[in-house]
């Protein structure tokens, strides 16, 4: 091995070419920015395709979409659910049951761009250490926010939820939003690695739980090709989810990443030079079907 300073995904970049090595990242950024852009088209240009914000919106005056986590807080705070918001939440729930709960985090939420950038810089600047939390803290905060909604009779987390503050702030043009963006950025960069999205955010925790039975999953279909380069572990925002699927063959664990914490970001697919990963479905998780090339061979 030459002593070249390297980074995760370098081999993939050299072997697969630029587009294949950044395909899913690129698509995600286009989606995230595109969603914001559609919201901003109204106030900036006067073309009202979508009104509202990610809490609740109305597309083309017909399609209502509502964040089910907000509606759950509202219900627990004592509000009777009997409106278009319920239909909106059901549509959203159905969508994420299909594409994966935390696809919300990696494909929709604009905070993800902030924390991904912070994580990227943290690795490139070799910033070690920092404060460690358990990744379970987010579930505690989620539970706390729901209990507090009951106790206070208000949608408790929405009073400080930086995710909705930023989404709303960008769409409605509130200058103070950028302080919150900066705070999250610095938290993830200097205080805790993947601290916000991977450890604390109850919105992500909610979508994790929602996504437990979801269909679309990343699968390490060609895990026998794995050469242990560790690039996927380096880029994964929830690296603990990879191991069972990638290394579980001996323990008779299927190749599909079944952890609800996987954000379906697809970055592991990008950075793998051996094309181990691809998007698949939860149902294709049998460990007993040997793979020859890309074709399943049934005995």
């Amino acid at each position, binding site marked *: 091995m030459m002593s070249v300073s390297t980074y995760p995904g370098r081999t993939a970049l050299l072997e697969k070419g630029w587009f294949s090595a950044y395909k899913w990242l690129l698509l995600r950024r286009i989606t995230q920015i595109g969603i914001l852009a559609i919201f901003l088209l*109204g106030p900036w240009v006067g073309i009202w395709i979508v*009104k*509202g914000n990610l*809490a609740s919106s109305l597309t083309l005056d017909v399609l*209502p979409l509502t964040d089910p986590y907000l509606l759950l807080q509202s219900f627990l705070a004592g509000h009777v659910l009997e409106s278009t918001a319920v239909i909106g939440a059901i549509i959203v729930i159905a969508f994420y049951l299909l594409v994966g709960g935390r696809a919300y985090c990696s494909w929709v939420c604009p905070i993800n761009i902030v924390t991904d950038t912070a994580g990227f810089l943290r690795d490139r600047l070799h910033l070690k250490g920092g404060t460690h939390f358990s990744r379970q803290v987010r579930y505690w905060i989620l539970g706390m926010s729901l209990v507090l909604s009951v106790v206070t009779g*208000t949608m408790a987390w*929405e009073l400080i939820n930086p995710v909705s*503050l930023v989404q709303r702030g960008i769409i409605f043009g509130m200058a103070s939003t950028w302080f919150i963006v900066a705070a999250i950025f610095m938290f993830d960069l200097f205080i805790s690695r993947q601290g916000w999205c991977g450890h604390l955010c109850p919105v992500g925790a909610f979508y994790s739980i929602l996504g437990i039975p979801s269909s679309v999953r990343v699968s390490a279909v060609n895990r026998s090709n794995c050469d242990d380069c560790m690039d996927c572990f380096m880029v994964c925002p929830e690296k603990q989810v990879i191991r069972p699927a990638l290394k579980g063959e001996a323990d008779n664990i299927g190749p599909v990443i079944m952890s609800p914490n996987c954000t379906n970001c697809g970055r592991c697919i990008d950075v793998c030079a051996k094309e181990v990963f691809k998007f698949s479905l939860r149902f294709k998780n049998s460990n007993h079907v040997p793979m020859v090339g890309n074709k399943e061979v049934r005995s």
Partner: protein
Amino acid sequence: MIQGKRSSRRQFLADSARTASGVALLALGLGFYAKQVQSLPATAIRPPGAGGEKDFLSSCVRCGLCVRDCPYDTLKLSQPGDAFAVGTPYFEARTIPCEMCEDIPCVKACPTNALDKSLDNIDDARMGLAVLLDQENCLNFQGLRCDVCYRVCPLIDKAISLDLQHNRRSGKHTLFIPVVHSDFCTGCGKCEQACVLEEAAIKVLPTHLAKGQLGKHYRLGWEEKRKAGGSLVTPDEQHKYNLPEGMDYDYEGQGLIKEKKDNVPFSSNPLDSLNRNAEQR
């Protein structure tokens, strides 16, 4: 082996306690904060159809659809740092008041019923209640004819009327006192916005601040009498005023009234009598 199990259990319990304590501290702060932001500042007015602040904060998802559908840019979303729940819609009457659209687009836009869909007539909205707070500076109280709050009121003569009173300063003029009637005032804030003073003398306040309440056991005698069609206690004796001849007194008819009689011994103008005496002397 047993030792290892025990120490890992210890570790698990310690970790859980650490997380629980951290989250509990956060919950404590957030809980007090949630209580604190339930009081809305008096100058921030909720859109039509918003119920009490507590109901509103349990149902509003802060999507801003009402703000987007407000044709007059009246409604705004509160920003981080504002003294009340962040992201919730409100307006300030002095800046842009509610124009009381007949089709109430803000209520229609609300996806959660935080703005009550059963509000179908904007005149039934109760966003607050206008109060003429500063009688020392209100021009009409000085005997001038400003009347602007009265003129701009969408429910003129119902929500604001002018009550005529004697101007004791000049001795010969009338004060046109603006009086707000809570049965009709929607709290739209047009009066507050239009007030010509540097700082408005009339302001829309939250109804619970603006309105007093009579003790539940209070009965107003004259109203009970009107309802019953006669006195409910002592025999209803006509009060006799000691008035100059030809004059009558009636409260509802605004005080002293000249009786319409043709055979009055004096001229209707008291100056005539005075002058006549002077002539005779």
